[in-house]
């Protein structure tokens, strides 16, 4: 009896039909339509037509875009997801230790992000399998959460994470002629060593594939994953912030013939954009780099600010509480050196545990806010990602912010929107269901208060799988 009523409720939800009449619709592929009727049925978009419907809802002056797709994020990734015992943990699934209830998904949703690729952290060389999620619709664990107020898993093996550059060897260096006594001594401490781990593991996989069929070798979960990457059944996503690391990625692709590779967090690729365009390798940029503050343009959360206001809790002699002089005109904390230092002190989880942004600060120092415009000009296929930008409530580097910033630095507006909708969907292997407003696609839609690339616009209504999950009207 209970079961059948549940079934009826679910069916009723799924059968829900709705229609929206919208003044301006950004279809996600760079095109714009005016006066459009969007029909949603069963969680899918069923029709996109000119004109108005009788029973439709509408918001005057609103713009509609597809739900934003974050091509590269660390939402819900924390210390629990970080495996450092081995340099290759290819078969570890991030989804098994992801915090689906992390507030980051809610923050992302409030900024219009409805789907995201979540990457394993970068502290070992082959980090494992990243996953695709929707930012809403999962089973909430907390009794105090609304129903569906957690991320929902779409794909637990979306891509294999390989990290080049300084992250896997960070902290492993010792002085010249001196040797570490810690366990890090067995780990690579140079870029060369890091790349050798990648090559060694893939050579192992090649050998494994040969011996496996004749039953001469025991099953290995890690090597099976690498074999899938070699076959092209699995996307290889190589983190390479510096230009020469991206070149290394291209060499590795040539050496092993990875049929599918994406270079992610490619903060400095404008230096070799022609080479990348020539090789037809897709790139994920982001997070937006703010050279004046030497850091990712991201503010501390309100909780962190509250914590920072209690200097007694932290032992620092030179501590100064943030005064009004640190707030900008809109009342937000300026990311000065002071603020950065404060973040290091009060929010070590961003600095030490995932070990994410520390390496970026040095490796991305050659980047430019014009990176998206330069890549676009060179003909590189690329999408934008937020990295940890959605981790805090003041999402000054949220995905839409990055697109706005890219436009300010020379990128075409329509291209900018496609870089956070249809292109990331394609790069993440969801180009047939996400990132576009088109019949047959998932009904993930955002209604903005104005032009989405206008800094004053906010998401008024967020729809995921046909359900209104946020309504700020």
């Amino acid at each position, binding site marked *: 009896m209970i079961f059948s009523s549940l079934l009826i409720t679910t069916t009723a939800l799924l059968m829900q039909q709705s229609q929206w009449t919208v003044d301006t619709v950004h279809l996600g592929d760079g095109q714009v339509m005016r006066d459009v009727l969007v029909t949603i049925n069963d969680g899918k978009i069923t029709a996109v037509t000119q004109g108005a419907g009788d029973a439709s809802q509408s918001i005057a002056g609103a713009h509609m875009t597809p739900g934003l797709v974050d091509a590269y994020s660390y939402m819900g990734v924390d210390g629990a997801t970080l495996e450092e015992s081995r340099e290759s943990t290819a078969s570890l699934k991030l989804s098994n230790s992801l915090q689906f209830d992390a507030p980051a998904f809610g923050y992302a949703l409030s900024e219009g992000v409805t789907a995201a690729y979540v990457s394993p952290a970068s502290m070992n060389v082959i980090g494992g399998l990243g996953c695709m999620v929707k930012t809403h619709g999962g089973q909430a664990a907390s009794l105090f959460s609304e129903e569906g107020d957690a991320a929902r898993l779409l794909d637990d093996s979306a891509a294999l994470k390989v990290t080049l550059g300084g992250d896997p060897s960070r902290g*492993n*260096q*010792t002085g*010249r*002629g001196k*040797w*570490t006594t810690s366990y890090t*001594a*067995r*780990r*690579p*401490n*140079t*870029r*060369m*060593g*890091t*790349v*050798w781990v990648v*090559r*060694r593991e893939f050579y192992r996989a090649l050998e494994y594939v040969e011996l496996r069929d004749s039953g001469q070798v025991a099953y290995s979960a890690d090597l099976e994953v690498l074999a899938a990457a070699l076959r092209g059944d699995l996307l290889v996503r190589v983190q390479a912030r*510096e*230009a*020469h690391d991206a*070149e*290394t990625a291209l*060499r590795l692709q040539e050496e092993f013939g990875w049929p599918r590779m994406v270079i992610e967090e490619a903060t*400095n690729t404008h*230096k*070799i954009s*022609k*080479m990348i365009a020539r090789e037809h390798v897709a790139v994920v940029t982001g997070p937006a780099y703010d050279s004046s503050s030497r850091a990712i343009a991201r503010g501390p959360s309100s909780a962190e600010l509250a914590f920072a206001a209690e200097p007694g809790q932290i032992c620092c002699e030179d501590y100064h509480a943030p005064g009004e002089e640190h707030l900008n005109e809109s009342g937000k904390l300026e990311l000065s050196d002071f603020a950065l230092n404060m973040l290091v002190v009060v929010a070590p989880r961003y600095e030490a545990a995932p070990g994410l942004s520390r390496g970026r600060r040095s490796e991305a120092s*050659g980047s430019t806010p014009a990176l998206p415009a330069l890549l676009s000009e060179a003909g590189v296929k690329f999408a934008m990602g937020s990295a940890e930008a959605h981790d805090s409530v003041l999402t000054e580097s949220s995905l839409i912010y990055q697109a706005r910033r890219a436009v300010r630095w020379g990128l075409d507006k329509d291209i900018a929107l496609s870089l956070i909708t249809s292109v990331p969907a394609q790069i993440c292997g969801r180009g047939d269901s996400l990132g576009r407003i088109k019949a047959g696609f998932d009904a993930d839609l955002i209604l903005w208060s104005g032009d989405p690339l206008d800094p004053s616009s906010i998401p008024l209504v967020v729809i995921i799988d046909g359900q209104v999950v946020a309504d700020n009207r």
Partner: protein
Amino acid sequence: MLTTLSLIASFTLFPLLSPAQQSATILAPDAIVAADGQLLEGYKVVIADGKIIEVAADPRTAGVEVRLHGVLSPGFVDAFAQLGAEIFLTEQSDKVTPGLLAVDGARLDSDAWQELAKHGVTSAHLVPDPTNVLSGSGALIATASEASVAKVTDGQTVQIASLLSSSVSDGRVGPSSLAGALEVLHESVATHGARALGSLPWFFVEDAAGTRSVKTLMGDLNINSAKFILLGDPGEYAGLFTDELVGLPAFGMGELARRAELWRRMSKANISVAFGTRMSNIEYNSLRSSAMAWSRITRDPQAAFESITVNPATMLGRDDIGRIAKGARADLVLWSAHPLDAQARVLATMIAGETVYRADISTNN
């Protein structure tokens, strides 16, 4: 006035060249520096597709002639450098790391490469730090390109092996003695065959015992192409290299005085050298100043010029760099005088037929 005008003309024409051009370009400098370091007047260098296709007084190839006011020299070759790489070429997790590639640790967008190009160095052999018994393979880098980043010519050149106190001092992740290091070498060869060392291994040595052992090992393996880089005090053991070509670290001018007697004796023993800068913090001019010093000390300008052009190329088994000759890559540097003349300045640098650096015109007038 006429000179100034033609100087400007030469500068405006020089950057027009690009390897995409199909037709040949005839460079007509005041003189070229031949492989033996002598100035040859009246010769023209014809380049096409990034290569030198003819060197002659009256070239048969048709093409656009560009008059260059200055001396055209082959670009210098740094035999072993760790430039732009810093600690990223010192792998400490193991003492036997033959699989490493220096190119993976190379910072190709470092300004240091550009600086080298401005000082007449067009090729640099990047090597892993020789702090492991087997450290991995080097990479040959063209110091500049059209994209203003250094470009890889060869990503896997030679295996870097070393028998230095720094590479055998650990004892925890590797051998703690010369005997132990030799055992590692023997083991590697026994396991993987001579290929473990690559076809052209380079040994960094610093004493007679290590040198003798490696020479014996190479004899046993029938490898004739092994090359040696002499560190430490070569005066103590360079007698083992009579009539051979060896690598030698370039030094700043201040340290040259106490090397003078050593170099004189090396020259007398007919030891040819190829200079390398090794550490990243060396002066960019140190290759040229070392060659100039060699010339002054040994009174052998030919050997001096060869030490930074043909010799490093020969050590790498290449004949397409370090010389102005048919078939070589068009790595050319325009100098205001003979490059080993203390007054000479770089006016322009070309790599693979592409102008990658031009001196500021205002400073040259």
